[in-house]
């Protein structure tokens, strides 16, 4: 049984807490948030203790795993605190805000002998796992050119923390790091990054980036990140190889659409497309981690995977800023 404390009681904190609460071999034991009300509210739901300070939590509660779901720029502080206390760590993506911090995180966790699990959840999205498996099985032959796209409206976190680009890294780090990790999983090491984007353009609640990645394997990938889309979330992927092409769009993968007539005062009805799966990818991801901790096996996502994804994101930001391609050592 893994005893888990969640730090950060926002959108992701709630999602992770819910997953642990349903897991047979995990137990949610505490919630921590600088906003004690937020911590208390989530803690009450599962009848566990709430803390505003992580150090008091770690000294007062017996914890095996600390799960960090706070704004990105604060990840490194919690990684340090948890590693110092000898706790295993799950950390929401991006692992940290900078490559330097990510390298430090990898090193201190190794020295402390604790597991550091970067929560790159895309690997547990069934469509992305299916595409990965098809690609590595040679379904499109040798992969040559890939395109991914991830679009939504601008995210509104607690106190609008995403809007501070310095803290969130904007769309080119925060959002499409999902795709960087998935592309690395499929195609290996990235050697060159070129990007254009709005990271430094100071347009309120708008960000957009077009990133070109060149892999050691020769694959060229085009990664779009869009935080300026009024129409809701869309993800698309296509991979072309010597023997074929695979393509996916979240707008097509919709097995259920419910349309309701207008009620009462409303003028128009609502249409809600749904793509239900029996297990949430977040549950599957955290279940994998908990099972690894229970059996002492290595999780499928390594600390280095988390670090490399941040390195690509940071290179993209640097390329946006300098207008130059960035070579990765």
């Amino acid at each position: 049984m893994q005893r888990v404390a969640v730090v950060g009681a926002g959108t992701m904190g709630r999602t992770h807490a819910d997953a642990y609460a349903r897991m047979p071999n995990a137990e949610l034991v505490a919630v921590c948030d600088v906003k004690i009300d937020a911590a208390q509210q989530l803690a009450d739901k599962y009848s566990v203790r709430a803390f505003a300070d992580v150090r008091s939590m770690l000294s007062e509660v017996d914890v095996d795993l600390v799960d960090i779901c706070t704004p990105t720029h604060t990840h490194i502080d919690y990684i340090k605190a948890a590693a110092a206390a000898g706790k295993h760590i799950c950390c929401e993506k991006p692992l940290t805000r900078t490559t330097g911090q990510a390298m430090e995180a990898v090193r201190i966790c190794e020295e402390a002998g604790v597991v550091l699990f970067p929560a790159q959840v895309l690997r547990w999205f069934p469509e992305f796992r299916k595409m990965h498996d098809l690609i590595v099985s040679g379904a499109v032959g040798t992969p040559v050119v890939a395109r991914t796209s991830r679009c939504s409206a601008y995210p509104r976190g607690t106190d609008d923390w995403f809007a501070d680009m310095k803290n969130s890294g904007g769309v080119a780090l925060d959002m499409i790091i999902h795709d960087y990790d998935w592309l690395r999983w499929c195609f290996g090491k990235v050697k060159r990054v070129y990007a254009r984007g709005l990271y430094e353009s100071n347009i309120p609640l708008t960000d957009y980036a077009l990133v070109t990645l060149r892999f050691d394997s020769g694959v060229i990938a085009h990664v779009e990140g869009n935080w300026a889309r009024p129409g809701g979330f869309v993800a698309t992927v296509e991979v072309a190889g010597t023997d074929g092409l695979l393509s996916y769009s979240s707008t097509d993968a919709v097995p259920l659409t419910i349309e309701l007539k207008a009620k009462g005062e409303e003028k128009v009805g609502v249409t809600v497309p749904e793509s239900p799966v029996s297990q949430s990818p977040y549950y599957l991801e955290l279940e994998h981690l908990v099972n690894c901790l229970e059996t002492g096996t290595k999780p499928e996502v390594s600390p280095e995977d988390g670090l490399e994804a941040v390195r690509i994101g940071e290179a993209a930001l640097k390329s946006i800023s300098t207008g130059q391609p960035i070579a990765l050592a």
Partner: protein
Amino acid sequence: MAEPKTVKIGIMSFAHMHAHGYASCLKRLPNVEFVGIADDDPSRAKQMAEQYGVLAFDTYEQMLASDIDAVIVTSENAKHRRHVALAAQSEKHVLCEKPLATTKQDAEAIVEVVRRSKIKFMMAFPCRFHPAFKRLLESVTSGDLGKVLAMKGTNQGQCPGGWFTDLRLAGGGAVIDHTVHLVDLMRVLTKAEPARVYAEVDNRLFGGEFDDTGIITVEFTNKVFATIDSSWSRPKTYPFWGNVNLEVIGTQGVAKMEMFAQKIDLYSDKTGKHTYEYWGDDVNLALIDSFARSVAEDRAVEITGDDGLKALEVALAAYESAKSREPVDLLA
């Protein structure tokens, strides 16, 4: 109102498959008379002339000496310069297939030959005439989308094979073939010129001498940035030849154009294939109509040689950038 004058048109070379599309439009347009065909390969000229019920000329010179008003040049890219010069000598107006040429030198020479002559010269960028693009342009121009910030385009297709993969005749592979359409549409939308180009280009789909894969980033003089995917990445089993897609990101919204989305899905046991049967507007019809009207009414053409040159420059800069692994400044 007086009936517009009928414009007599010949086709110079059927090397480019678009000649077929143009030929069928010439037959359909009321203000145009499709006179005949000349070709480097006289037997092809004969065969095509028979197919379309027009005259076959033994040589380009013979066709140009006839009473035609204009020609459509659909020869291999590298031959455009020679064929345009021939037509200009005989004072025949020209509608020229894209890309304008295979080198900047040839492209500039074409623009110069046209400038010194009295002929009208129009670039065949038919995508400008698609109603979806016109609506997109309207929406951008009216300010609906706010200030344009970025664009994302794809002109992915199946590998056409033949001389398109012969560097001497085509000037390159997928990048020179497919980049120019989107550069042209983007120039029209942003009303700005390409200033900087970066590209990753490779040949790993077919492993030939020619490039088959290209992701090109273009920055415009007004800071708008864009990417173009010009890869021949649609496999042989793909239901259609390819696509022309363009997304525009503005401060007030986003727009997405899929030019050939007006289609019927056909699953045929006869052919063993799934195909997209396109039913939208035939953009070639509007292109040739525009050209014929410019000739008949002695008006300026809608798409100039300079437009062709500007688009070509981006494709050529993409090759240069891919080689140097550096962005290339076009205005330097």
